[in-house]
């Protein structure tokens, strides 16, 4: 724990202003502006090809945008080459130097900075301690497991106490269990070291788990910026609702004061200002099998159970809705395993009534 305190850092805020990068006719980044506060854990989340990695490369200095500004603190860095930016960076495939030992890898930035031998040894030991790799300094990189390599890459990126840490899908090469462990560990490490962190991932669950704020990027544009719960509960459009978490999107018609799905009317939390076509976002964990008593604060849907799938921690039910314009419209609901008994589960083919709280009935355009 002592070593962790020594590693504690000052951090810098990052201001990205109107950054645009065009490849021929294709916009990799389209007028992106984003302020990342000092010490924040910011995740750039988007599908592959969305431009999130390009934005990270702009921050690191490996890609020059067509125009725009990037400031670290008050200093404009857009014209600075990568080696003068003083950022720590962790790459997707670790990018460890295979011809060096763990110690030499982690000590590399110190050597470049002309740090004395004794000081280098001290800081390398601290950094290896921070990532829980004490005593592995003399190992060769190829003797390490994937998780250990990831830790070495992390130690190498933090050993010189950078004020900003960039991570490009650092956990994507690890298996699921290790990945989930590392997510929590990385988050704890960030809280201890307190450096401004920009984290790129396509894994929405990872983003929700780790971030202070998430910037959802698609087609080179910033679609939504917000805290994980804001983004999950109040996605700004159909793309985000579909991309973040599991959801069924039901087409809804709004003609004030009525909101209707097919022929049946529903109530929603915040009716939109304009009439037109919208989508109702239904999260599978928020729908439930309705009891006999109908309540005023719930919407009800009728449908036929198509499939019932055991998934360990929960039971997934796929239901084909009646009374919708689209015959193929299905809804997914998730029942926690603890409440699953043979009695409560309907049989396949049976008609069921589903309930969704009005407070959870959220529309997107």
């Amino acid at each position: 724990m002592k070593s962790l305190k020594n590693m504690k850092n000052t951090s810098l805020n990052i201001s990205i202003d109107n950054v645009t990068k065009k490849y021929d006719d294709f916009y990799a980044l389209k007028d992106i502006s984003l302020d990342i506060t000092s010490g924040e854990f910011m995740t750039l989340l988007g599908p592959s090809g969305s431009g999130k990695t390009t934005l990270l490369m702009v921050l690191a200095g490996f890609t020059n945008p067509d125009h725009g500004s990037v400031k670290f603190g008050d200093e404009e860095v857009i014209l600075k080459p990568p080696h003068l930016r003083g950022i720590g960076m962790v790459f997707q495939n670790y990018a460890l130097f295979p011809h060096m030992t763990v110690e030499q890898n982690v000590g590399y930035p110190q050597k470049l900075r002309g740090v004395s031998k004794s000081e280098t040894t001290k800081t390398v030991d601290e950094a290896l301690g921070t990532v829980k790799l004490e005593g592995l300094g003399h190992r060769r990189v190829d003797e390490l497991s994937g998780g250990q390599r990831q830790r070495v890459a992390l130690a190498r990126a933090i050993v010189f106490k950078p004020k900003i840490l960039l991570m490009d899908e650092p956990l994507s090469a690890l298996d699921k269990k290790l990945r989930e462990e590392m997510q929590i560990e990385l988050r704890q490490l960030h809280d201890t070291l307190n450096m401004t962190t920009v984290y790129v991932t396509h894994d929405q669950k990872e983003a929700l788990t780790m971030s202070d704020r998430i910037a959802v990027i698609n087609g080179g544009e910033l679609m939504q910026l917000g805290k994980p719960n804001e983004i999950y509960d109040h996605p700004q459009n159909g793309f985000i609702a579909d991309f973040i978490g599991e959801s069924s999107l039901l087409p809804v018609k709004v003609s004030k004061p009525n909101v209707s799905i097919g022929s049946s009317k529903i109530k929603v939390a915040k009716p939109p200002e304009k009439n037109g076509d919208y989508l109702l976002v239904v999260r599978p964990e928020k729908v439930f099998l309705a009891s006999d008593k109908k309540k005023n604060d719930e919407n009800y849907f009728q449908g036929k159970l198509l499939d019932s799938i055991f998934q360990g921690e929960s039971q997934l039910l796929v239901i084909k809705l009646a009374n919708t314009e689209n015959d193929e419209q299905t809804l997914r609901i998730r029942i926690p395993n603890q409440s699953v008994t043979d009695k409560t589960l309907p049989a396949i083919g049976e008609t069921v009534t589903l309930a969704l709280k009005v407070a959870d009935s959220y529309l997107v355009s």
Partner: protein
Amino acid sequence: MNSISNNINQEELKRLAAREGLTFFGLTLPYLIMVIALIAIPVGWLFYLSFIGRDGTLSLENYERMWKSKAYIKIFITTFKISILTTIICAAIGYPLSYFMSQLSRKWANICMIAVLIPFWTSLLVRTYAWLVLLQKKGLINNILIESGLITEPLKFVHNTTGTLIGMVHIMLPFLILPLYANMRSIDKDCLKAASSLGATPTRAFWTVFLPLTLPGLLAGLLIVFVLCLGFYVTPAILGGGKVIMAAMKISTNIEMYFNWGAASALGVVLLVVTGIILFVASKLISLDQLGNR
């Protein structure tokens, strides 16, 4: 009961394994015969001949002559000098070229590769004579230089060390580029980005990361070029014009002019042993380095 059940099918499985071994032996047999008939026996014969003197008895005179005759010592010096120079020039041209190719997109790299490979596939004799035509006194290069007024007297490009080196470098270059380029392509580009993000200037990143990672390919290329140069015959014979005498040419004259099989064999044995030693030493170096490249 247990011991019986443990031995189920044991005999049959053993027979199966034996048959598999026999199949593999059968598949390698033609090659084994070829190696023994075409390499082991002739090389053994060569060793034997090198110890036979002029009078047909066992003697060391063929080796003594090499040690004592100035002509032979000079030949060895020339052979090593030409080989080392060719190797160095190939590295000086091939390393930047391979680097350039490794940075290109696949499409352009392939086009460059074709440009490297077409001369590689062209007959060695054709290329050597082409150089003779280009480099001779009234050849294309001298004509251009004189007409452009850069020189007044034709430069002497052929029938000397310069001509030999030009020809040999041209012929050897692909042998250096092919392993080196493959090595450079396989380097994770993020390694250089990582070095840069950690604070390394491009020059520093080259010396501390890129160069060490290309050493296996470079060593392999240098080795192939050097060893091939040691026994090279056609190009030095034509472009050297009899003034640059390398070991392989001396072997040929020993046989063609003096019918001295013993002396020729001894030279052959020395070349073989030297090559063997170089390969042995280098294989240690390269295998060590490739461990670091995994």
